[in-house]
């Protein structure tokens, strides 16, 4: 994993800590695990992730379209960031 991607992952984990459900440590969730079905976040938090990506990476979902599946795990979010920025 490149330094930039590692930094993005750390930043994402810090953010997810602020929107996650209580009593579900984020350390137990693997990078490819589904964030909603694993019980870490609920569907409202998906909206928070959208706002986070808009504000942090300037991603315009109006232009890119929104597919919940692409924000389903930490890995897929990082991939989405990479694709949206290129």
């Amino acid at each position, binding site marked *: 994993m490149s330094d930039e991607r590692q930094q993005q992952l750390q930043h994402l984990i810090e953010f997810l*800590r*602020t*929107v*996650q*459900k*209580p*009593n579900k440590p984020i350390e137990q969730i693997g990078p490819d695990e589904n964030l909603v079905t694993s019980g870490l976040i*609920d*569907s*409202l938090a*998906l*909206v*928070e992730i*959208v*706002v986070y990506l*808009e504000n942090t990476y300037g991603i*315009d*979902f*109006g232009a890119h*379209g*929104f*597919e*919940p*599946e692409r924000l389903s795990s930490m890995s897929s979010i990082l991939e989405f960031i990479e694709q949206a920025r290129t």
Partner: protein
Amino acid sequence: MSINRLTQFHEDPAVIAWWQARLGTVLTWCTPGRRRAALAIAAVLAGVIRPLRDMARADDLPVPSDWPGLASLVLALFAILWLVYQAAVHFRSLPAIVRRHPQISIHLLYWGSLAVLWLSAPTGGAWRELLFGLAIIFPYLIWRCGYLLLSGQYGRAASTRFVDQIIPLWPAYGGTNTPYGKGLDYLSKCEAKNEEELARSQLAGIKLFVLGLIWNAAMTLMERTFYGPETVIPRLNQLVVQGAQAPFLASWASVYCELVWQVLRHAADGHMIIGTLRLFGFNVFRNTYKPLLSESILEFWNRYYYYFKELMANFFFLPTFTQLGSRLRNWPRLRLLAAVFAAAFVGNMYYHLLNLETLVAQGDVFAAVYTLRSRFFYCFLLAIGIYISMRRQQGRGGKPLAAGHLARIGRIFGVWTFFALIFIWNVKSGAPFLARVEFFLGLFGFA
């Protein structure tokens, strides 16, 4: 054996191994391909039977009634689904405006064909009858086509076969206008890939069948002992007609009973549908998951009727929220409010308008809207409730709710009361809007 182990038997490795041992040959034979083939054949049958059944029900309307007309209708429906499939597969070749707004495009096509129907002369003959039949049946397919187009939009339809897509388009496992199990994308994601996963999925399906039977028995018990036309607590639809004259205690009991009744009904129906899907190896989410234990309005809406909530989220909430990103970035609360209203109010009302397909097909759109007048208020209250619940959840910022049984019971009671009260404007009844308002006020002594 603990209660938890008993209720979670479908996750117990010993039970899964036992199931595999008993059904080993069957499970080996039931490859994903064979399971899909069985469901596809059933889907084709459903695609023939359902239109015939719906036309027989609408025999007082100018719909196809002879065999050539009915055959044309069935073929036309399959042709439309195939065209939508082709549009999804070749999504990138579609005109830019359709690519940008595929859902709006398909709904505009539907309303355009309705306009042609309304403007055509009643003496139009077979073509008009065919169009009438399509107008009545297409609301059942329109959201399913929506999921197929979503799949095309995200580039996942190109590698799929029509024979697989037909499974959720004409679902033989049942459903309403709401697609239980959504589209093929979601089904594929949840599909069992090996014998162990299939065994787990089937056991989970059997669990849902058992639960469905229990909830049906609970409804029967309610009806025969205390809740119903001839018993102590009348049904809510009977009481709201009486407005402020409804007996006080029976009214309060009835609003809570109606909530429990609706939850049981949704759970019982949904469990049978999802149970069937799980038997075929599609281990999808339940439609109803313990909504009466919800501690917030948002949680209840998520658990009560999951696939309807997903429909509203996928086609109204999320598109509105993301599209408004550039315009309302500095007004996050307004942005969230707009998205919630797009789903819980606009989308919810539009969905139910399409459910009145015979009125709409006859051109009585205003009559259809008038029929839904009480529901407008229900949806308005629902949207307000969901928005406030979301804001409260955001405000907590991931912090846990107050601990303790009493605090939890208080939250659950609050959720029950909110939904029980707004159901006054949702329950199917001949009661006019004002009678429902009077009934509501009567509950608080303001008769």
